[in-house]
């Protein structure tokens, strides 16, 4: 996985790809348009089912239906433009995406079951996993510091009704 190591991308545009988010490497740009098209159809169908009403009294579904219809046209135009144009999307940083998503999920799961302090600790450790420059001990230490900091600020200082630890 070359997103993980910091090697230059292999298409001769490596520097651009590493430095700027605009660095595009072989991905179908039209997929974005297709996804929007799907979304627009969902809202059009949903709007239709909710009822469009009459012009004097617009129904619950009128606005979603109308915006969905406009979006459908735009999405089609995007698909066409992308097919005609360079049509490339940036390659995703899977590791970063996975780690950050997992860290939020861990927060949601752990805070509910074990409490704030273990939740924050686990979130920090998971979020920092893709970082090779930080040792495991460093990650744990950072986790402890941030967890204690959150306890101090959010529970002691701001009095949020969250328990630092839960019994299970």
């Amino acid at each position, binding site marked *: 996985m070359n997103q993980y190591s910091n090697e230059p991308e292999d298409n001769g545009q490596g520097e651009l790809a590493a430095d700027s988010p605009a660095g595009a490497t072989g991905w179908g740009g039209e997929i974005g348009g297709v996804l929007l098209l799907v979304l627009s159809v969902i809202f059009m169908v949903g709007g239709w089912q909710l009822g469009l009403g009459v012009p004097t009294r617009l129904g619950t579904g009128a606005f979603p239906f109308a915006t969905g219809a406009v979006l459908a046209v735009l999405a089609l135009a995007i698909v066409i433009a992308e097919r005609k144009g360079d049509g490339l999307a940036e390659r995703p940083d899977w590791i*970063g995406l996975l780690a950050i998503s997992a860290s939020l999920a861990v927060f949601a799961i752990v805070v509910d079951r074990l409490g704030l302090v273990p939740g924050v600790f686990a979130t920090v450790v998971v979020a920092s996993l893709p970082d090779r420059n930080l040792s495991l001990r460093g990650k744990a230490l950072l986790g402890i510091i941030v967890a204690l900091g959150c306890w101090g600020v959010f529970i002691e200082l701001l009095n949020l009704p969250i328990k630092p630890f839960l019994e299970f």
Partner: protein
Amino acid sequence: MDILANFSQGLLVVLQPENLMYCFIGVFLGTFIGVLPGIGSMAAIAMILPITFYLDPTPALVMIAGVFYGAEYGGSTASILLNVPGTPAASITAIEGHQLAKKGRAGVALFSTATASFGGGIIGMVVIALLSPFLAKLALSFAPADYFAVILLGLIAASAVSNGGALKGIAMVITGLMLGTIGIDLTTGVTRFTMGVPELRDGIHIVIVAMGLFGVGEVIASIRATRSGTATQTVDYSDFYPSKKEWKSLFAPILRGGAIGSFIGALPGTGQTIAAALAYAVEKRVSPQRKDFGTGVVPGVAVPEAANNSATQTAFIPTLTLGVPGSPPMAIVIGALMIYGITPGPRLLTEQPDMFWGLVASFLVGNIMLLILNVPLIGIWVRLLNIPYKYMYPTIIVLICMGVYSLNNNVFDIWLTLVIGVVGYVMRLFRFEPAPLLLGFVLGPMMEEHLRRTMLLSRGDPMVFVTRPISATLLAITALIIVFALYSTARTHRRALAARLGSSRKEQPNEL
């Protein structure tokens, strides 16, 4: 002078210890987050928003505004020292600023930034104080059709100039409008698109949308970019103050930049980046030093910075007098006000004078604080830039989680943030900008309501939009913007394609 009396009234409000404290916290945190590369003012405001819910509306608004201009300010520090703009508008400052830094004159660049920012901020503040009462009076004669038109104009203007091109920008606005319909329809009481999830009945909270799109999305996007480590630059204090000649060369650019910035900032849908870019372009033509532009000149740093900061302040004009935010950060301000039950609009000035004039006066106080924070204390921010990102981003993720969780103490909100964050990241990959989406999301319900009222008042006749002079004018401008934006997008598209095919035969796009 009526305005002077109002202003001094506002000054009394902001000088209350509580407001003063939150103003300071705002500009401090804003600078702090703005200095961090990759995290812009939008993420900064989104992260601060949950905290402000514990405050009264006035200190909350003062604090949000402080975070906003503090972050825009801090962005320039990072862009001068590292050439990594902390905020998009700061990339214009970086053109000359980083050249100066490379010449070993980073101190002078930072000092000019501080001065210009202050000057621009004060110009912007004066413009608000003079223009807002006038505009609010005008807005009192607005009918629902006119509001609909002005919202549409704001949305289109803001999205048509987005980086990914007009088509994608407008598509994002529409997507935002659609997502804004999720939850109970306030007119009919019917729930829409909640998929049976009770937590979605009240709609998606603006904090969740903003944190997901800007917080989570930006962190994922910036991990790779900043994994390569940070460059270090030391600021030489002996070379901090500009020479006498440079001092003199600062004055006119600040006035010009401030004037351009406050004009652009007050227009719906423009924002700081355009203000800074335009002011820089103008200065490049009129400056006596125009030949040296691009090599690192002091006026070249001052102009975009003055324009940026004055635009940041005047962006509040349409937001507070019409209730129509011209830019995504202002959309958050509107969202926050509505959470307090305050409807921004022409009546805000007369009904909440303390809040309005307190905010205006807080720009003066906040800019003085920024000057203090950034001239004698610049060393702190330079040192902050040296903290590796590896310590920063896990902490930012935790702050996002805490902010979202504190809304309802419900982990459902965290899961929702996760989903929106991933969507926001994927959008970036396809070069869809999240900012127009947020703008549409906030304005959607307002737009729908004005549309319904208009249709009710006109007994179902849509022609009212083109027969009322105000709305007809606004819609005509909107149409012009669309035509122009689509034309210029198509042109740059063709050029980019031609350049691509011409220069890089060896790497053909693989799906063609």
